[in-house]
């Protein structure tokens, strides 16, 4: 809503910028990204590290497009539109790049809970088995010394595979599924939560998301807001309730409803999306486009719903 309030920031009309995407003209407000323009033009650009509430990190390179006059492909999620840009989203070069990115990710990371992966694999002819057999679970990813890395002998493809971390009742960390997109780090850091409980530890292929000294979450600076889980694109971070149901084989999104309501724990008025299966809240997310919370919640809003169901387990009255 562009309303001017007395003393408030000036509302200046936003200029429209016209660019060409795959031969068709499209106009978007100045300051938009190529990705926004592509979406407006009805193009389906794959993204992984892009987050609608976060500053683009340019980490995953899956949204690359070809830009006329540019030597290299450009990340559409961060590159701003400029007048008369000519963008190509589906050239051989673009397809080849996306294929490689997806093959490298899929050969080293468990993408089984990442939405749309099968579709993209088919679209870009991804053959992630061509690097050979995948390396088995490593128990030492958290304990390597800085700078120390032993190159493999080529028998197996290096993987992120490691045991799942379950150290509390609220959310679990399955870093075998982590693509190092940095979204959780940014959500925990200056962009939203400012708790700084997690960062990237290590270098190169050894790097992974970690708490300080790889401490368990309850011993770390984590305040269990779950705002990292909210933005995780692969399911590396997931709510304990969802994890347990997946393990038990009862997680069924087709049987779930999603209802937006308002948190009951303080006067701020954060919006909650309650995911309900069999009349039980199984997960709480928050709408990213809402002015109060922008997808963020605190521990009570995110996890404090249990009292309602405890009532049911007690048999109601």
């Amino acid at each position: 809503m562009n309303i001017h309030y007395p003393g408030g920031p000036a509302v200046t009309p936003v200029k429209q910028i016209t660019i060409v995407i795959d031969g068709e003209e499209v106009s978007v407000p100045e300051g938009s990204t190529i990705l926004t323009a592509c979406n407006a033009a009805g193009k389906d650009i794959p993204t992984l590290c892009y987050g609608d509430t976060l500053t683009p990190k340019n980490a995953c390179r899956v949204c690359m497009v070809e830009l006329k006059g540019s030597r290299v492909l450009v990340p559409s999620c961060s590159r701003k539109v400029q007048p008369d840009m000519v963008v190509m989203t589906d050239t051989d070069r673009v397809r080849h790049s996306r294929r490689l990115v997806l093959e490298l990710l899929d050969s080293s990371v468990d993408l089984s809970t990442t939405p749309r992966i099968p579709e993209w694999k088919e679209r870009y002819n991804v053959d992630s088995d061509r690097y050979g057999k995948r390396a088995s679970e490593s128990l030492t990813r958290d304990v390597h010394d800085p700078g120390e890395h032993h190159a493999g002998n080529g028998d197996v493809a290096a993987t992120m595979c490691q045991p799942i971390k379950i150290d509390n009742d609220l959310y679990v960390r399955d870093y075998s599924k982590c693509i190092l997109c940095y979204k959780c780090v940014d959500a925990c850091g200056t962009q939203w939560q400012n708790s700084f409980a997690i960062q990237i530890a290590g270098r190169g292929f050894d790097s992974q998301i970690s708490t300080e000294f790889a401490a368990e979450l309850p011993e770390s600076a984590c305040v269990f807001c779950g705002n990292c889980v909210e933005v995780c694109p692969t399911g590396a971070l997931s709510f304990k309730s969802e994890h347990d149901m997946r393990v038990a084989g009862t997680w069924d999104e087709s049987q779930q409803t999603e209802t937006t309501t308002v948190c009951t724990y303080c006067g701020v008025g954060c919006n909650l999306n309650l995911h309900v299966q069999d009349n039980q809240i199984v997960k709480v997310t928050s709408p990213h486009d809402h002015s109060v919370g922008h997808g963020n919640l605190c521990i009570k809003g995110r996890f404090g719903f249990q009292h309602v169901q405890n009532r049911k387990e007690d048999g109601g009255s």
Partner: protein
Amino acid sequence: MLVFWGSNAREAHPIFFHHALKAIHKGAKVYAVDPRRSKTAEWADSWLGLDVGTDVALAYGIGREIIHAGLTNKEFIANATSGFDDYIKKCEPWTLEVTSRETGVPAELIRQLAHDYAKAERAQICWTLGITEHHNGTDNVRSLCNLALLTGHVGRWGSGLVPLRGQNNVQGGGDMGAIPKNLPGFQDVGNAEHRAKFERLWNVTMPPKYGMTLSEMMHAMDEGHLTNLYIIGENPVQSDADSAAVGKRLENLDHIVVQDIFLTKTATYADVVLPSAAAWCESDGTFTNSERRIQLVRKALEPPGSAKDDIEIMRLIAERLGRGWPKQTAEQVWDELRAVSPKHYGMTYQLLKERGGLQWPFPDENGPESPFLHGRLWEKDPAKRGQLAPFGTPEHSLPVDKLDDEFPLRLTTGRRLTDYNTGVQSGGFNSPIRFGACVDLSPEDMAQLDVNEGEWVRISSRRGSVLAPVRKEPGLRPGLLFMACNFPDEVDVNALTIEANDPISGTAEFKATAVKIEKTNEVPTWERNLFAKLDREKQDLVPAK
């Protein structure tokens, strides 16, 4: 610039604090005024650690400094306020030195806050229960209002007074008339014209008398005027000050009805319990948040057992009383409110849904919204400016529960990030960062008492006594204790607190209790039970031979 005065928003309003953090990263200056060096104070440029209950004095000291430094907004004071001369007189004794001596805050910090606040282009004072839960809570609020009037930090974009509501719908409850003096939509029970509007709508005659506040009801129970009580969604036996006195009053009543989503401690006193649906997820309706934003609440779950929607319970009671109210949806009830409340008139359910909530006043469907109030004070035309905003001249008055040789320590209470009120909701999930019931002591007091973390101590006030384990809190100054109020089943903090109520708001002085603390070998029953349970579990773990 942001001043958090008696507000630990980082823990109590975490997502509001996200907005503050955005400002902090853009360079906003932050002051924290709080007896505790709280999590919020950790983000502040400066922390003013005042003694509990000296807020009025500190505000006068700041006001005097602003006046003497010539930093007042003269034009705004002349155009939009009244009572400035009296205010100046009242400020005069509060030199930096006197204020510093009374509040315990270094004079230089008081001067800095005064100058930064007055010179800031935009400044907000945010407060919570640290201001209001005093016997003179209303005076505290007026003192903060004075500072805003003095500098013109009110009614402008980015400047203002921000009371942060502690509960999801306490704003909405008041707006809807759950206040003894008000009808829904800010209309006065004492005003015949306002009453007539409702009488026409409901086809009834309404008594012109104001109702009682909670504290007045307590008084009326003592005197025997109030013999029947209908309690909806409140747990006064655990949430109100001096819990022993509250329990005794309820025992003496003729009849109590409790309508709640849980069988709370209060419900155990009831003759009739009406199980209700959880408003936030088992029924439709609206909540109004701290920024006056009305948002839709939606039913996501079927309530358990025979629990019913609050609207339906009311209707059924009316039916038993011989009134055939129609069955109404939440939206129909809302439309009824819109019909009598001009400030809500423009807010249809459709608009509330499309816009993700709307801030009142919103009299017209075409808007605009009102992101801040009191903008009229800046109008050039005196007619549009309307009634002048009065400076208040409250007296500084120390907490009712005085410190003396027997009760030399000051206990203050509050909420932690992971817990909420009497714990009946937040107790439902396993928080990895929950300390549980404990008493926070400064390292200095721990050394003086010769106690270690985890040791049990007995904390006593003039009204009661409880046992609690010690937790070290370096954010406390010597002589100041803190206890979270969220675990009344383990440690009944309100057995200690004093029922000294603010005469206007009726709020009790939860923030200032005089206590003493003693080492003890006693361990309370609940803890013994816990140990016994742990022992049993350990035995269960021993492998069978």
